[in-house]
């Protein structure tokens, strides 16, 4: 375990590191950046969009800056983990689509539509009223030292004072073994699994199977 970690809520000065966390979590240990491939964006274009939308700090979807916490040691970034509340009226996916719609090239929409058909069904549905934890990232030299588990615990505890939620969920790729094992070690359980057999899906995602993980009930109050 790393000692003397400073964990705090992310702010505007952390945007570059949060962008790194989002992109690295999308890659899940590979070189595939899903958003770039699905929306026909270069990595730089995607980073520019993320910079803009994170600075808007809009709640209830996964690019909510204030939902992120960052861990530091001696003033150096160690890791980050995002969180957002899955709304009971407007799903996070709808919010994300609305925000991204302003940035995407309309002439590419037919291509995006075609891409959406290939990846259709891979993402499990999030439960309204739950806390979602996503975009976890730990700098390589600090891995295997319990940082991610500390970030999970700390992020849930901080959100307990803000929202009422019966469960915490997260969506990851099943074949991202490091993340998978860390979630199970923390106490998450697998509640849904979605696989797409079309080999083309691997152009858009690092792996072809996503799982919905859940952490709930007494486990939350015991943290």
């Amino acid at each position: 375990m790393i000692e003397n970690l400073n964990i705090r809520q992310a702010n505007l000065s952390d945007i570059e590191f949060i962008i790194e966390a989002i992109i690295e979590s999308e890659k899940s240990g590979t070189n595939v950046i899903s958003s770039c491939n699905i929306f026909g964006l270069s990595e730089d274009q995607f980073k520019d969009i993320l910079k803009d939308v994170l600075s808007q700090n809009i709640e209830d979807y996964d690019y909510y800056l204030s939902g992120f916490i960052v861990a530091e040691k001696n003033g150096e970034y160690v890791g980050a983990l995002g969180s957002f509340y899955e709304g009971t009226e407007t799903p996070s996916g709808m919010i994300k689509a609305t925000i991204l719609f302003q940035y995407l090239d309309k002439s590419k929409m037919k291509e995006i539509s075609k891409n959406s058909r290939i990846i259709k069904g891979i993402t499990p549905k999030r439960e309204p009223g739950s806390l979602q934890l996503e975009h976890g990232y730990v700098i390589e030299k600090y891995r295997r030292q319990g940082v991610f588990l500390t970030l999970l615990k700390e992020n849930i505890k901080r959100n307990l004072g803000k929202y009422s939620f019966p469960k915490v969920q997260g969506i990851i790729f099943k074949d991202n073994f490091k993340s998978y094992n860390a979630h199970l070690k923390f106490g998450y359980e697998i509640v849904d699994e979605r696989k797409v057999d079309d080999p083309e899906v691997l152009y858009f995602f690092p792996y072809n199977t996503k799982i919905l993980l859940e952490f709930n009930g007494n486990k939350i109050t015991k943290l």
Partner: protein
Amino acid sequence: MDNIQKLIKTFTESLEIEPEIVTDELSYGSSSWDSIAHLALVASIEIEFDIMLSSDEVIDMSSFKKAKEILGKRGIQF
């Protein structure tokens, strides 16, 4: 082709679903209507009806029924 047929066609093509499924009950989250399909759907609606949707309209377009209401407010009759 009248407006309702145009809208049904836009939904069937964007969400890759059968026309029979396109009823007032069809809403975001059902069938293949996820966040990425929503982007394609609203873009197709803009093209088909030659309008520019606002962010409020894009986020509000959560069902086929809502889509008709939003377009109705833009003077498109169904």
